[in-house]
């Protein structure tokens, strides 16, 4: 083989390699729609004032003096509603949001999802986690992992923990764990007999924020303040008395049912900007 032939082979080889490198199945990008962003902030009030933890300064509707040491909860499946009936479910990246009064970073949720521009009538969400998504051991890292709900009691995670102290009828400080999660129905009278559990009750509930209409503008971020009015957990429609229900209610479905029903008006809308 002479030199020109060899060069030709070399050139064809390079060309051959280049051609086999071409790629023709690149996806056609979808047309982009105008969108903005949304950010939620979480505020916790008692009787209209910011929560002050570790201070025995509050009195509930049942007359219990109490203080709150910890407040943590999940909301999920946040949905934005338009007047034409269409909705935008926030779940592109994250669909379960953990809020902890002791962890400032959890008090703000900058949502990943692009939100189509337009006017929205309201915001709703699930307080807690729905049955299909509340799967044991889906969280392995703190702080969410600390919300684990024992498997024998239904598994998954607490929807909410409000931990604190109240003064009982003898004016002695007593710890309360005002917890909400999956409830249990027992065959026997004793809740200690977990073998007698014959059914579980999903206690998550839907919340529709009042006065939560807003507008999303292109490339702008709308901030919505979600307020939890903590005193409301203990009143309307039921007056919740710590002296009656005691400190621990994880295995007390009637108590959790009352909490669930009281939760319907706990949340209000704060500043939208």
């Amino acid at each position, binding site marked *: 083989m002479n030199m020109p032939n060899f060069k030709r082979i070399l050139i064809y080889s390079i060309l051959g390699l280049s051609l086999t490198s071409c790629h023709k199945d*690149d996806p056609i990008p979808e047309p982009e729609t105008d969108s903005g962003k949304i950010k939620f902030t979480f505020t916790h009030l008692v009787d209209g004032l910011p929560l002050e933890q570790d201070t025995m300064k509050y009195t509930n509707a049942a007359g219990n003096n109490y203080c709150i040491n910890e407040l943590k909860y999940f909301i999920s499946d946040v949905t934005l509603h338009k007047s034409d009936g269409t909705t935008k479910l926030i779940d592109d990246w994250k669909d379960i949001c953990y809020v902890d009064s002791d962890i400032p970073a959890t008090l703000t949720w*900058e949502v*990943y999802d692009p939100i189509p521009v337009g006017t929205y009538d309201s915001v709703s969400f699930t307080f807690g986690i729905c049955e299909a998504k509340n799967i044991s051991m889906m969280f392995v890292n703190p702080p969410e992992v*600390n919300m*684990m709900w024992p498997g024998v009691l239904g598994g998954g995670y607490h929807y909410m923990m409000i931990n604190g102290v109240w003064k009982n009828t003898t004016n002695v400080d007593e710890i309360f764990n005002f917890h909400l999660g999956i409830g249990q129905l027992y065959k026997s009278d004793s809740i200690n007999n977990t073998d007698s559990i014959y059914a579980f009750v999903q206690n998550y509930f839907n919340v529709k924020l009042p006065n939560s209409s807003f507008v999303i503008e292109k490339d702008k971020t709308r901030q919505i303040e979600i307020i939890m009015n903590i005193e409301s957990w203990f009143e309307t429609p039921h007056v919740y008395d710590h002296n009656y229900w005691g400190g621990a209610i994880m295995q007390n479905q009637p108590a959790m049912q009352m909490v669930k029903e009281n939760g319907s008006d706990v949340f209000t809308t704060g500043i939208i900007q």
Partner: protein
Amino acid sequence: MKRSAILLIGLIALTLSVKAQINTDTIKLTPIEIRDSILKKIPYVLTNIQKDQIDGEAIRDVGDYLRSIPNVSGVRKGGVAVDPVVRGFKFSQLNVILDNGVKVENGCPNRMDPVSSHVEAEDIENIEVIKGPFMLKYGPALGGVINLVSEKPHPYEKFEIHAEALYGFETNWDGQKEHLLVYGGNKKIYFLLTGAIRDYGNYQSGNSDGHDTTFNASFRKYGYGAKLGYSPKKNHSILISYNEIHGRNVLYPALPMDEKSDDTRMIALDYNATDLSAVIKSLDLKIYYSDVDHLMDNSQRANWASKQMVSDVDALNIGGRAELGMQVKKHKIFLGLDYENIYKDGARTMTMLMMGTTTTKVTNLWKDARIQNIGLFAEYKTLLSSFEIDAALRLDYNHANSADTLKLIKSDIEYFNDVSTQFINFSISMGVTKEITDGLYVSLALGRGTRSPNMLERFIKLMPVGYDNFDYLGDPQLKPEKNNEVDLTFKYSNDKIGNFYLNGFYSYVQDYISGVMLPSSVVTPQTSGSLGVKQFVNMKSVGFTGAEFGYTSPEKYRLGGSMVAAYTYGYTPTVTKYIVTGSNVTGDTILKNDALSEIPPLETTVSIYYKFLKGKLVPKISARIVADQRHVSEAFYEPYTPGFALLNFSVKYNIIKYVSVSGGINNIFDRSYYEHLNRKIIGTSGKLYEPGRVFYITVNVKI
């Protein structure tokens, strides 16, 4: 120490009882000898390391030693089992084989046991490192081939028996290694028995920054093996090999679990024939079976009290190859086929102990997963005028399947669903070498290597197998990666001034397999400390380019030395960066020409030695200088790594024909440093440091 003393005494006794002969009349039939004669003017970069270069070095495993080769680095996760990286290509992008074709499927998803950890460094006869997708005869090769060839028995004219024993000790780790080798035979039957133990403690990093840190990286490894050869007639040989390697309580501070036990068994049968006819010059047949039982847990970690993780994996690789070597005048042709069948099965049991109750979850890591690959290959070598030509072709059929039941589908996007795939992959390489003037050669090599995704990339379920703190999820529908590479190499050899080489390369990799974050609404991590989940994906393309330089002085002078320098630059034309605020992903942006992650920085090593006593006593001093790595991936939030300089000293002394001693000091100035590829300590953002100053000594007795 006591065991070592017994071992040495035993060996001396053996010396006295056996009439030893120096094997000047050995007949070597191994395929490597045949290939070497035609590899001298290869058009790509091949590094060949012989046993005497490894003996006496303070190395814990083969991967550790490989890092001394230019443009070869390693991923360190603990005290041992450094995973080799060649020009930024790693894991299955490299075809790492034992004994010219034996493959081992690592049991650990975190690669506690890369292939290079399944052979004792002291059992190595030679190591070949081929950079680029050029050598295709050992299986699909994307970024290179590492061929670890262990010592084999060979026939003798008359019956002989020999033995070698090695004892090594390293400070810092208080590490001891012992190795015993007995071999011999006659013209027809010959054998080799080997055994090794390696017991190392935790090590301390250097204290040049004012404080040292102790890393829990202790380990115990032991292994043994036997090889029996038979030559039924001249130029024909059969070899059966059996090896076991075991690991116990091997700690990996940069991984979420430690190796409780690893039991690897390998058996191989080789048939080799040479000069069968005027045309057929060689025939090599090989079948092998390798089995890895790997058990790991977090029982030595602080979180064991609240969260217990135990993973048990069984990995099998069964295969073989046949190669026919022919020569017609100046044309050499090698034809063959190979087959491998990889099976993997294993699960992780996770137990949470919280609120007085225990919750247990069993997740399969692999579920009866299987990959079968059958390949046809051909190599052609010839001389055309003054040009030496090398060409290779390879065609692979690859089929994968698994009994996985995981379905991960959201909004019509299938993240994990259909587990069966099959591919036909084509690889090709071609190179030419020309002698321009006396001793100066220039080579050009072009290659396209294709490899199918591996077990991990296809099927792994939520394990932190990357360099970042993310759990990874496989994608059964990944496409094969293709590396299109060009290498230009200059070599100059001169009796008086030494040997030089300079190489430059460019790789354009299509369907590069990397990781992309998945939304927490799709899947959440299962490992404590993981920030989220990434799934293996094909990126459209990435590029690697780099250069390396090497010089060695002529052997004939007393004063000599060497110098190597290497650099690789990796980039991706476009990549999505997810913007993380606090613990939330709040948006994404497209980056142009971002750096590829885990690419080693520029480094150079200069060594100088002097031969005393006619070469019996050789002290050597070497300096290794590594630059900062600032070209880091922004999309992957990869931190930069500061540069460092190390000074090492070693001396080898062949006291008598049968006894040699070597020793030295590594990291003389007790420098506190870490390599760019070292993994982070689990649960922190800090890297795993390399050992501080180490004094070592190795005694070698051969009879």
